[in-house]
């Protein structure tokens, strides 16, 4: 089943991970599954990149890790947003909305502006 796979822009993955954790603690696999299903698997997220992002965010203090038990009683590492992480998510989401809106406006433009003057 061929699909238009989009490559991620730098730094985007971090926002997605933060968003994925905004409803509560999740382990790495759950985060990956959630992003894939929410984007209808349009985004190609490498597992390696996802885990690297998780650990980096933990190091930056945006998320916290804790060992816990998964639904089927297995030991799993759960990640949770810290207060800093929550703030970061709000700011980044707003930035993204603005950015996307701006890009969208340009792409939807109907008439051309003033033509460039020739030299």
């Amino acid at each position, binding site marked *: 089943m061929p699909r238009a796979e989009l490559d991620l822009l730098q730094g985007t993955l971090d926002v997605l991970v933060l968003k994925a954790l905004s409803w509560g603690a999740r382990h*790495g*696999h759950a985060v990956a599954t959630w992003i894939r299903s929410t984007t209808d698997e349009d985004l190609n997220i490498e597992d*390696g990149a996802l885990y*690297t992002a998780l650990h980096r965010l933990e190091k930056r203090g945006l998320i916290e890790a804790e060992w816990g038990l998964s639904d089927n009683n297995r030991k799993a590492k759960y990640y949770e947003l810290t207060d800093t992480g929550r703030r970061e998510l709000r700011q980044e989401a707003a930035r993204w909305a603005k950015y996307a809106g701006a890009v969208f406006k340009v792409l939807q433009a109907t008439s051309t502006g003033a033509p460039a003057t020739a030299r």
Partner: protein
Amino acid sequence: MEFPALRRLFRLVGRLPAVEQDIDAELEFHLDAETERLVARGFPLEHARTTAVRQFENLSRTRSELVRINRGRRGKERRVNWFEDLSQDIGYALRGIRRQPGFAAVIIATLGLGIGANATMFGLVDRLLLQGPSQVLDPGRVVRLQLTEHNQDFSQTWTNESLAWKTFTDQRDHAGYFSGIGAYFTQSDMPLGRGVNAGTLRATLATPSYFTLLGVQPVLGRFYGESEDQAGAAQPVVVLSWSYWQRGHGGRTDVIGQRLFLGSQWYSVIGVAPKGFHGVDLSSVDAWLPFHAGAPDVVGKSGEWRDTYNWQWLKVIARLKPGMSRTLASDEAVRLQRAAVAQVPDVDHKASAALVPLMGFERGAVSHARERIAVWLASVAAVVLLIVCANIANLLLARAGSRRREVAVRLALGVGRGRLVRQLLSESLLLALLGGGVALLLAQWGGNLLRATLLPDGGWTEGTLDWRVAGVTAVFTIMTGLLTGVAPALAASNPTLTLALRSGAADGASPRSRLRTGLLAAQACLSLVLLVGAGLFVRSLWRVVHTDLGYDATNLVVADVDLTLAGYDKPGRWTFYDQAQERLRALPGVERASLGINSPFWTMNATRFRLTDRDSTPRVPGGGPYYNGVTPDYFATLGMTVVAGRGFTGQDRIGSPNVVVINQRLAEFFWPGINPLGKCIRIGADSIPCAEVVGVVKTARVNAIQEKPAAMYYVPLEQSIRIGMSGDRTLFLKTRIPAGNIVPEIRRLLQGMAPNLPFANIRTFQSQIDPEIQPWRLGAVMFGLFGGLALLVAAIGLYSVMSYTVIQRTHEFGIRAALGARPGQVVRAVLGDGLRVIGLGAALGILIALLAGRFIEPLLYQTSARDPLVFGTVLLTLATASVLAVLIPARRATRVDPLEALRAD
């Protein structure tokens, strides 16, 4: 989410899982979860697993990337954990202190005293021996010139730091070992001002090179230059010390240009030296004058001192040239010195010059007694700290034993032994730190006290607590904390011991008990040594104070005024003193007034002395015959006893026959067994008629407490002039009220007798003797303090250990009581145990004290280092203290209820 929280708690105790394990577990979970997901979608299990792994691209690269990210983070976490542990340890230690505040207070106080004593002594030794003089640039390169000469009259070799101006110029003009060389002399009572308000200053005459070679810069104004210090053309300018500038001029900058009347002339203030600078000696300086400007008021106007080697009074310092060694420089100095005096008569041609450092022991014979005392006291302080350490280790050991259940519980809970040791160590360290705080307070207080007694005239502009003292205190504190904590911590956390204790066995012969017994014996031993030292010094002091010097120093005041500064000629000076004597005698507070040429412990004089009934006059071993010219009231004023014949009367004047009073020493030496009264002595020139011996006085000390009896004779002051004794006068006053209260009145009268009189030097007779008594007084006080402290600490240690033993043996005492043992028997058993240990230590202590005796003997006065009275008293004191310390726990042992005791285990 409850469980992870619990897990976090565990992590404090257990080891952190390795970073790799953590990551592997996480990735493993991911692959498992993905496999399950795929299986749920219908993949076969085998296939699902491979797919999951394949989907996870770059698995191994990701893993190493994650490890890299986490390494740094875990390091930080571990540090955080370390701090968490530390705060936990401190909390634990604080709880321990709160639980037994009395116990902690004893330990903190003991530590404070022990460390404080050492910090104080370090501060002093540092200043005396280690630290260079303040504000001096690179003091290690500054040296002092010494001369070792053989004196034929006394057939003795002297090492001298007081040198002739010629010796200085020989080196200055011809040697090449220095980059700068200077001469100085400090006059401790240079008269300041005139009239009723006249005072004195500590003034240093210094060549201009003195400042440049020491590398000091003025904080205000300037120092003087070579052109201002020329012989015959010296400028009357003065540089003030910072402390005198503050004290005498309120630190005002307009002091420059103001004038001071010093000695016999006005000086203009041209500069102020930096704070703390007092030259290179230990005493303070108020002002510096150009050498040639101040010299006439110190050594006379003749200038003769510049041309002779015999006038030895000034001190020489030099800064070695870069790269020049002290040995090479000394060699050159000797060569030069010998070459210079080769043709000079009456000079020791073999005298050797040496360059010695400013600080430390290398000053050899010249190094001051107080430096030795300081080192002695520092060693004693160190011994006290050892005792304190032994004691606290013992207390903590005893407590570690009583905590065995707590420790056992913690060990059972899985607390690692290392962690436990750390916890116990942090407790002793915390105690030591608190003790260190107390020590700093003590050092501040004790340091000031010690300075005031040992170096009263030191230039102490800096506080007692500098960073060096604080640093050393910190080191002492931490060392003490570790020293006292290690043994108890190791013992307490030893699982096998804990096991042994848990089974209820008494630890009669356990290694720990042996260690404690040993520590106790060591304490007893060291305390005994210190107490013996204290006893010996106290006995010396007692003997010194009770030595019959031949005078009655009670309410005896001595006074003189330097009238030459005020321009009086010799007859004028004599008249002045005669009048002063009359007017002072009229004061209601003055009982007797008299005059003498010389003052005991201050000056002495000798002249030609021959016996008419012998051909030759042998020398008197012990010195003399010295003379004094005195007024009739002199013997009564000084409380001297006339043992035969009579003293002088108003009739012994210029017109009447010459008479003399001799002391017993002179009488017994020249006329053993013969009545000396009526014998005739020829004093001074042959043309003068001989003087008839009319009286004998009891031999009194001439110059020092520790001197052999010296021969001495006294002539009537009026006749002394005819004999050719032309010395100045000194006033002696016996007062009705304590001397200190009448000094201001005497001063007003003396300084007001004529206009423009300089400061009168008025002192108590006792103050002329005190400097000699000082070493014994200091030794007695310091050894006494330290010895008492050691005894107290040892007694506390004995008490606590015996108390603990009683608790340990509750079971045994219970059985004994049940078997019908009488209280007396139990007390004897406990007493016996305690006293055996003390006895062992004391025996060892006596041995050490006897061996160390010969080192201390030279410091004692008429006291053997093996004085049986001292040893007896000390042993008795130690025994009493020990019995008291043991008796309380022993009595407690008798109150053991047999039933209770047997039920306990």
